[in-house]
């Protein structure tokens, strides 16, 4: 218990020191302008899923399917858990779309990508998809793989809101002639475990591994090279430690701050980029990454953020319905959270900003909320 506490303390102090140094010093580096930042966000999104994660899921899937085919009593499901700000659905779809799939099977993706607008229709969406996936399999000997990469989009925290999940559990346990690949965020899984003891039925859910510094560097290098980055650890000032490679140290620190999550790391990396003006124009620099400060939150803010983390992404109407409040009472707090950069809105869906995730986990844990982190 002592070691993680010390590590958390060290990480927090490092972040604080990096911010303070940047604020106190007469910093010649400027933050990126908004449009440049948005363009880079799009480039990060286009990077795809890091290779080590694809390899992990592919290997886990191959092992699980082989075990299921050789032993009728073996589990017929693989559940992949991720943080709510990491797109597990993109990872699963990438694994299934690989040219060299982990095994030969007839694959089907259940059409449950986004919650329907009507909150009452959320459980019905999954039930209808499950009923639609029931035609008798042709007796070809080829296994059938059904995948549901977004389990957190198939329920809502309201009365009757997780009945679809209970139906899914029943179908998986009854139809042992099919193999299921499910993706879910850890917070949603923890919630479903509280309300329907789902991990009693499926105890072998696998959490995605944390990426280390070199793996993150490998993933982000194409983008960093394209920007012509000149590394500048310790906040733009030359490092005094000659024995330590500042670049390696910087990526390792990024991995530690992000808890090994690629999207969190990418967001923190983006926030560590600066522009330096010189005679040739402006040049991009990378400074020591730091966790952003959390603003002072109200109780309502915490309930909103906790709900967003459980559901991954959600529409304002669903958020209000789940919290039992009218939308117009939530709107002011949503606008404030958007303004503070704690949440983001994309295509009408709200979600937590990845760079704030580590800070929010601690803040919610300290306020007696359950979290998806161990």
């Amino acid at each position, binding site marked *: 218990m002592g070691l993680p506490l010390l590590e958390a303390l060290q990480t927090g102090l490092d972040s604080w020191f990096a911010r303070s140094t940047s604020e106190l010093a007469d910093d010649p580096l400027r933050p990126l302008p908004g449009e440049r930042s948005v363009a880079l966000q799009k480039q990060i999104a286009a990077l795809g899923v890091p290779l080590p994660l694809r390899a992990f899921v592919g290997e886990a899937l191959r092992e699980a399917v082989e075990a299921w085919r050789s032993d009728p009593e073996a589990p017929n499901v693989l559940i992949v858990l991720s943080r709510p700000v990491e797109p597990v659905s993109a990872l699963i779809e990438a694994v299934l779309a690989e040219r060299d799939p982990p095994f030969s099977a007839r694959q089907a993706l259940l059409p449950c990508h986004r919650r329907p607008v009507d909150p009452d229709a959320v459980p019905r969406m999954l039930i209808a998809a499950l009923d639609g996936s029931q035609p008798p399999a042709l007796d070809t000997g080829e296994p059938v793989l059904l995948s549901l990469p977004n389990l957190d989009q198939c329920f809502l925290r309201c*009365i009757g*809101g997780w009945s679809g999940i209970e139906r899914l559990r029943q179908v998986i346990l009854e139809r042992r002639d099919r193999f299921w690949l499910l993706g879910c965020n850890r917070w949603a899984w923890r*919630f479903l475990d509280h*309300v329907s003891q789902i991990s009693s039925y499926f105890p072998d859910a696998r959490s995605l591994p944390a990426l280390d510094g070199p793996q993150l560097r490998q993933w982000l290098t194409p983008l960093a090279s394209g920007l012509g980055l000149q590394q500048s650890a310790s906040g733009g000032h030359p490092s005094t430690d000659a024995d330590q490679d500042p670049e390696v140290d910087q990526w390792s620190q990024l991995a530690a701050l992000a808890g090994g999550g690629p999207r969190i790391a990418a967001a923190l990396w983006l926030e560590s980029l600066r522009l330096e003006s010189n005679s040739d124009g402006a040049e991009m620099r990378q400074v020591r990454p730091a966790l952003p400060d959390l603003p002072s939150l109200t109780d309502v803010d915490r309930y909103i953020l*906790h709900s967003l983390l459980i559901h991954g992404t959600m529409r304002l109407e669903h958020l209000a319905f789940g919290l*039992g409040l009218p939308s117009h009472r939530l709107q002011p707090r949503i606008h404030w959270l958007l303004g503070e950069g704690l949440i983001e809105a994309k295509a009408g869906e709200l979600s937590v900003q990845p760079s704030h995730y580590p800070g929010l986990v601690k803040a919610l*844990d*300290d306020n007696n*909320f359950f979290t998806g982190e161990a």
Partner: protein
Amino acid sequence: MIPLSAALEMVVPAAARAETAAQRILADVTLMKTIGAVFAVLLAYAGMFLIERLTGWLSEKVARRYRLLIKQSVPFLKGLILIVTVSYLLDQFLNLTQNNLLALTGTLAVALGFAFKDYVSSILAGVVSLFEGSYQVGDRVRIGDHYGEVVGYGLRSLQLVTPDDNTITIPHNLLWTDPISNANSGKLEAQVATDVYFDHRVDVDLVVDILYQAAYSSQYTQLRLPILVVMEEHLWGTQFRLRCYPMDARDEFVYRTDLLKRAKRAFAHHGLSYPHPQLALLDPAGPLPAEG
């Protein structure tokens, strides 16, 4: 010829004269001692004022997990200041020898026994409660007819803030005679009981399921703690009681409202029938009130 008194002074040694001085209970009072005492009292008063204000402010600024910890430290910190100050004053103004102490406590016991009986009783009860933990700052307690959060813990009394935002001062010595109901006993969570009533012919499985789901779906619910629905029969209908915990005991009323809103919406959706009100008049016990 030497006078007798002078002869005695020569015969009786200085140590014996000092012993005579030590037998006096009160020490010599000087101007410096008086100024020091006044300064010590003012310092103690300022210290206790600062502790109360500072901890009150800080406990509302930090995360919930640390709120009660900070609040519960107030009586101990104030007690520490009191002990140090009183010890200092006693040392300055009294000759605390063994005999003097006996004489002093005897005198005090008689004086306090008659004049300040209730006051001393309250102080002692306050000290006992501090170690017994019957109530602490931040707890939600019911003492007599009063229910609320303990927000102050003084030498003689405690302060409760009721749900209607009234502050009630209750002497500690009620601890000797009155039962004290503590909802959270130093923890953040306190059980909330929510009652709903239905006709005898209602589908009980459906009602129980809805009540469980109402608790699971409320954002206030502490899901790490047990949730339970119990039933009780009355002449006029069936009573269902949902027992669950909010993450913060302070939310108990808004939590109960949220549970009822969610549950009643679902009851209405399923068209569940409520009990006949006229039959309630025949029941001598009547419906049980919800407990906090």
